[in-house]
Structure formats: structure tokens, C-alpha cells
């Protein structure tokens, strides 16, 4: 079983939600990590550190632009080098792009407004995040002002070659088409990973459709369960390269 960490920045506001789903719903072992400290409380190879949604430092300059300077970022770099996994959700995704962990950038939605709604998302590729997800549209809510994924054509080509796209916005029946794109993201991209498949970022909030007491069909829970199953099944396959 992996251990989990949730990083808290001033202005994070989905940290308690992640702790609820991981700790209470999935009965996992969760550590809270303060952005201003480098200490990862013993988390290491095979463990997962999540960067939650929110408005780190108010997001006044650009989402994630201040958070990327937090002392914990350097620890996260070493953590990934040592075989750990990082997943940024919403603001966490924005921070990981700003800090150069992930390619591309998240810019203002085409609508120019905040968009909060239920959203269908298709899992793509064979990453540890998506490997055990059903190949159908998952109902994973979004809530952001700056969620429009942008990346240059060159980099996008490279990302496709490396299977770095992990989620795409889609219709209820799983078609990845423009009308299903809520924010103007390049090729409906909702989530990506780094070249080695250890750092993930996604705009949709799996934790928001994960509590069976509130949600009738908790698709978001499948995302966390997919991670658990990947880790358990394929633990031996993870190669630590450095």
C-alpha cells in the first residue's frame, strides 16, 4: 500500500476534501505537508503526493506563479527522482506546470469566467493513473477560471509519442469533440503526465465525485482505486532511474 501526502499552501482549499476521500472513504494513510517546509515525512518510492485545488497565495499574479517558489517544490523534485508519484489537481496542476514538472500551461477559460459543473472526461493511455480505469466517459466535476490547457504543437507531438495525455474532455457517450470542450483546451486535454509517467496533472476533481453517501455513481473514486490497483499490481515494474 502506498502512503499519501497532501501539500497545503496558504490559499489551498481542496486539501480537506482530498483528506476526506483518501482517509475516510478509502481508509488510506495520509500526511499533511506544509508548503514552507521541505520535510516529506518519510514519503518515498511508490508513495503519492497530491497538490490540491484552491487559490495558492490568492493566485493573483497567475495561478501557481508564487507557489512554485515554495520550499517544498525542491523536495518534490527529489521525491519524484526517488520513485515517488505526484498528482496535481486543478490549482495543483497549475502549480506543476508553472514549476516545470509538466509541459504546457493553463490559461484563462475561453468564457473568461469561472466554470463549475459536472463534466465527462475520457481516460487515455496506459499510465499508472489511468491503467485500471474503465474506458468510458467518467463524471468528474470541474471548477476553475484558468483551465484551458495550452501547449505548442511541437511539444504536443512529443507528448503524444510518449503517451503523456491522460484525460480528455468528452461527451456523455465518450466522444472527444469540440462541443464537449468546456474551456478551450488544446485537443480537449484535461490531464497530462511527465515523460516518465510519475508526475500527473488534471483539471477535473475526482474527489468531488467520490463519496458514496453524497454521489450516486462515484466515478472519481475509480481514479483513486485505479492508482491503488496500479501500485499493488505493478509495484515491481516501477523502475527507479537516476
Amino acid at each position, binding site marked *: 500500500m502506498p502512503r499519501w501526502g497532501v501539500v497545503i499552501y496558504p490559499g489551498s482549499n481542496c486539501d480537506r476534501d482530498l483528506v476526506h476521500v483518501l482517509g475516510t472513504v478509502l481508509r488510506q494513510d495520509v500526511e499533511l505537508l506544509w508548503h514552507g517546509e521541505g520535510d516529506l515525512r518519510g514519503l518515498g518510492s511508490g508513495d503519492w503526493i497530491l497538490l490540491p485545488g484552491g487559490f495558492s497565495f*490568492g493566485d493573483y499574479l497567475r495561478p501557481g506563479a508564487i507557489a512554485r517558489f515554495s520550499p517544498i517544490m525542491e523536495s518534490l523534485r527529489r521525491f519524484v527522482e526517488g520513485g515517488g508519484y505526484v498528482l496535481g489537481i486543478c490549482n495543483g496542476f497549475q502549480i506543476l506546470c508553472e514549476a516545470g514538472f509538466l509541459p504546457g500551461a493553463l490559461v484563462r477559460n475561453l468564457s473568461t469566467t469561472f*466554470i463549475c459543473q459536472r463534466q465527462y472526461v475520457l481516460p487515455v493511455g496506459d499510465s499508472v493513473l489511468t491503467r485500471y480505469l474503465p474506458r468510458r466517459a467518467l463524471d468528474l466535476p470541474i471548477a476553475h477560471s484558468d483551465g484551458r490547457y495550452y501547449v505548442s504543437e511541437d511539444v504536443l507531438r512529443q507528448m503524444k509519442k510518449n503517451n503523456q495525455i491522460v484525460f480528455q474532455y468528452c461527451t456523455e457517450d465518450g466522444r472527444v469533440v469540440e462541443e464537449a470542450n468546456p474551456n478551450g483546451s488544446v485537443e480537449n486535454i484535461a490531464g497530462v503526465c511527465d515523460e516518465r509517467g510519475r508526475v500527473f496533472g488534471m483539471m477535473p476533481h475526482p474527489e468531488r465525485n467520490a463519496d458514496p453517501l453524497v454521489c450516486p455513481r462515484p466515478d472519481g473514486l475509480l481514479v483513486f482505486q485505479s492508482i491503488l490497483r496500479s501500485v499493488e499490481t505493478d509495484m515491481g515494474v516501477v523502475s527507479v532511474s537516476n
Partner: protein
Amino acid sequence: MTQPAQTTLDDAIAWGLTPQEWQRILQLLGRTPNPTELALFGVMWSEHCCYKNSLYWLKTLPREGKAILAQPGEENAGILALPQGLACVFKVESHNHPSAIAPYQGAATGVGGIHRDIFTTGAFPIATLNAIHFGLPHEERPRWHLEGVVRGIADYGNSFGIPTVGGQTLFDPVFTETPIVNAMSVGIVPQDRIIRARVHQPGYLVGIAGAPTGKDGLRGAAFASRNLQTDRRQEDLPAVQIGDPFLEKVLLEAILEAHQKGYIVAMQDMGAAGLACSTLEIAARSHLGMDIYLNHVPLRHKKMEPWEILLSESQERMLILIREQDLHNVQKIFTRWETQFTPIGKVTQRPTVRYFWGKTRIAEVPPTALMAGQGAPIYRRPWREPHYQHTIRTFQEQTIPLPNNLKEVAEFLTQHPNLCSREPITRQYDHMIQLGNRSVWFPADSAVIRVPQTQYALALTLDGNPWYVHADPYIGTWITIAEARRNLLCTGAEPLGITNCLNFGNPYDPTVYWQFVNAVQGMGDACRYWHLPVTGGNVSFYNQTEKGPILPLPIIGMVGLIQPITRQKTLAFQNPGDLIYLIGPTSSSLGSSQYLIFYHGIRLSPPPFFDFRIEDRLHQLIQALWKLPGIQSLHDISEGGLWSALLEAAIPLQKGFHIQWEPTIRPDAFLFGEGQSRILVSIQPEAASQLEATCNRYQIPFIHLGTVTSGDIRVQNQNWETIQYWTQLYQSGLKPYLPS
């Protein structure tokens, strides 16, 4: 030494006080106030702070209830007991005047302010609702209000991290210059962890936490205590505060951590009249005094006069009382969260509050002299019935022509800004954060929010109907309470209590005061009838311009309990073949309906049919239906009548309906009338006979109206298109007016 006394009656009048109030100040102080002291009276005795023209009537409202944990006025918000040792803290507040001249900041700081009222008790806010009202959106100024207010609510609430889960948005020409913006916050705290706004002994350190103090929001309370003047918008802008949700978020986190560690002895948020009001209120409630050193207050602007520091309404600040020995630890917590805690004074035995600048005493007042209901005056103003009431009473329904084509009327109403989809607004609000919003997945007549770490939920509504209240303030307000209670019951919730925000014109206008007094009496009678405690409230007068007052608008926030959470009912039609029932009295009531006002343009008519005894039997019936197997949906019939209710039930799961009825009343009244005490029910066919028997048992009439279909819609055997057609119309109503 104290500043020399040099004020006169003219100075008092400049602060908005009357000659009688000036005399009262001289009497209470036993001397002439100096300018700073007069400023304190000017603001603390403003309508906004001391409720001088409303308090007499508010005190008539019922406050008793087994769940009540704090009396109105005793704490910053109403507090009700919940299961498992928890408590629910909730309150509504208006930010009408600021929103009229600076919609974005006005609404944003309204949201920030109401949340502070909640977390000042130690509670963690779990939901916010808002009731916002504008002129017709195709006009420029109302559209500017709408766009700014929605963005202000969204930016503040989304960043602060509290879901915005419900409320209402309504449009009427009367709100063109005077938008009404009310926000409600609901928080949860363990009963034994409630932070009070008073202490029992002197010696505690008084500190100011959060943002530095600036010149924004000066005289905000005074601004809210007079009519809006359309030629003074520029001059009034400095009275509007500026909000910063990030500062409030870190303030909340720091306070929660300090409270967790037991450091907070008492706390009071800084809203209207800022530092002055918060220090005076804690001192008055504690029957103690304070020495406050204004030169220690962290400032945002270099040059600020002592009275400006006292009365600044800069946002994201709290007054916190701690033990002296904890200062170092408290400051460490606030610094870690990138905010600050600065000691500025002490609680004293001597029951006066003294404000110093270094060694110079700037002001000294007995705190009770400034308090609402104590030193502050209480008035009962004269009132008289407005002349338009005669027109309302003589309204004749048969003078309204019956339209040839009811489908066209339905199309008009479906797209009308008051009845169409609110999605262009609500999608801008984060309504899912904190994971508790069950109404996202099971749409219902009220917001349903799971209480963290429990198996139960709260049902929340925030509603009012200005047209009903204008037609008859007493009955209109009764209906507001009845409908809120009906909403909660249709959601499967047991109503616990209410709060309110009373939005009216100028109380010195006897016809406005007549509306106010009757509305409060209607609220009181309704709440006594159903044993609903009124846990607190807010009054916003002076919502008027040169052109006259707004429609009177008491907004009611009601809280109910759904335990266990699975008792929740949805309003959505579920399966084709389920039967649709209209339950409740069929009346030929067109009065004050959206149809009559906006289709026929008739603005003066009686409120819709309402009989509280029938209403009460219906409420008992709904509770009986909670347990009836086979019930698929329960939905209240309100604005837009049966037609709107049918569409609202059909749209979520994209079902259709075939309906048919014996025409005993005019068909427009049947489809679009807003007669009260009615609900729409869908049920599995095999359970229908039990439903009918239950209705008979409670002596409530019912009509078997038709069946749910997979998308096809037929009315009286006529083809009325499909659900896709109506969904498109329903979603189009507000789209032109908001970015999408």
C-alpha cells in the same frame, strides 16, 4: 488628557443624528462629546448599526425553540443545536447600497462579511446562499449590476473555498437603481467549542488579526442608513469596502488553528463601524471596559486620523481576545499563515471603553450608551396604508383576457428571466467544493449539504417574493415562510429555524413603515404557528431613490435537518410510466403571478390564494409521504405555477410528460397561477392508491394529472413538442446577459 470638547448640534446633524438624539447623547455622557466621541455615536446610532426604527418590532418575533443555543443579538449569528453534539451557525446580511454603486466589490465584501459573522463563533462555513435582485436584464444598468454582483460573489466565495449552493435571482424594474444583494452563510461547530463574543473578567489582551486597516469603507454604515442618491454615486464610492478572499482564507485558517490550540477567549468580527463597533460590543456584552491604543493598529495608509482608524470598514479583520501569556504562540500561528495578530489593548474592570493615541486619550465612552436596544434610541414610526392597496383589493380576475394560445404563454414564461435556468449564474459559483452538496446529484427544492463527519445533511433555502409582499405584506410574508417550509419538507427535511433579511424603503415614509410592520407581524405569526424560532436577522432600510422605494422584500433563510441523509427527496421525474399527481387545492388564483405581472403587465393584484390551515395539513401530508414507498419525486409549486414546476421536474433527467385535467377553472390559472399549498408528485403506478388514500386522510385534494414519458410532452391531448425543445428555451433565458 482627553481631546477638548467642541462639538455642537450642527456636528451631530452632519452625522445624521437628530436634535433629540443630540440631547440624549449629552444626557448619557453627562457632558458634550468631543469630535471622535460624536463620530462614534453618529455611526453606532445609525440605522445600520442600532436598528433604531426596527428593533421594537423585531423583538416581537418568536425566539423560543428547543434547538436554540444563542438568543438573537447575544452572539454574532443564530445558533441551533444539531445531532452528535454539533451546532449550526447561520445568518443573512444585506450589501445593497455598496452593490448599487460598485457591484463587484459590494457583493464580494458582502460574502466576506457574512462568512466572518459565522467563523467568529469558531464555526467552519460549509455553505453560502444568496438572494440577488436586479432591474430587467435587457437594460444596461441592471446588466452591469448582475454581471458585477455574480462575479463578485463567485470570485470571493470560490477563492475562500465555501460552496455557493442556492438562493434566488429575480428581476423587476423596481430594482433598476437599487439592486438587493443578500448573502447567507452556514457553518458548523461542536457545541462545546463555540467562541463567544464576551468575556467574564478583565485582563485579557485585545488584538486585531488579519488585514491592516485602511481608509476604505469609511462611513459605510452611515451610507447604508440613508436613501441612495443617484447624483452622489462618485462621492459615495469611498464608503464601499474592498475585499480580498485570500486574506480572509488565511485569517480563517489561522483562527481555526489558534482555536484548536485553545488560545481564543472571545472574538468579534469587524464589519460595520469596524474597530469601534467590535470593541464596544464585546465590552458592552461583558459588562467590562477596554483600553485601546489606536497607534498600535497596523495601517495600510500612512496618514490616518484616529476617528478613521476607529471607523474604517477595511475587510478581513477580527478582534480577538487572548490570555497575555499566549501572545507569542498566537503570533507565531498568524505569521505562519502569512497574516498577523497585533495586540492593541486590554480588557479593564472599569466599564468604559477608552481609545488612546500613545498617552493621549482620544475618546472615552460607556459602551452600553452606544448599543442597540440599550443607550441607542428605539422608535416606532407612524404608518399608514398606501393608496395602491385600494386598487389591489378591487382587482377583478375576469377582466384579464384568456390568451388564445397557451403554448405561446408557456414559451414566454419558460424563457422569462425570473423563471428560466439559473445555470449561467450558478456555473460561475463553485457549488461542489467541500464535497457535501448532494443537490448536485439529486436536485431538490432546497440545497442539501451533508454535514462533515456525519450521516445527516442540512437543507437550506433563501427565498422571498417581493410581488406577494407588495400585494399584502402580512400575507405575503406568511407565504414566504410557508413556502420555505414546504421546500424543506419536499426535500425530506425537518425545519429547525429561520433567519431573515428585511429589505425595505425609507422607514420615515409611513407607507413603507406600514409594509415593514405588517411583514414582521406576518413573519411572527407564521413562525409561532409552526414553532419556528427566528434566530436573528438583518434589516436594510433606505432602499430607495428619488423615484421611490423598492418592492418590500423580506428574505427568509430556513435551515432543516435530513437525518439520515438518505431520507432526501428529489424533485426530478425518474422513469417513464410513473404517475404524476397535483396535490393541493386548485384555485382560480392569478394574483401576483409572474404570468399576470409580466405577460399581462398587471402590477397590482392580490397575493395568490393562501390558507394556512390547508398549508399546514399539506405539510403533514408531505411528511407522511416521506415514508411512502414508490414516491419518486416531490416538488413545490411556486413562481410560474404548475407549468414551471413540471418543467423543473422534467429537465434534470430529460423526461417528458402527458397531462390532462377536467377544466373546472380557466386553463391559464390552472397552468400558470401561483395558488399556494400545492406540490407536484411522481410515483410508481402500483403505489398510487396509497398516495390517494394518504391525501384523503389529510383532507387534501389531488388530481391525477398524467404520466412521465421518455421525452414527449402533451398537454390536454395537444402536442407540445419534446423536452429537448423546452430545455433549449429554459436554458436560453439568461444567456444573452452573462458571459458564457
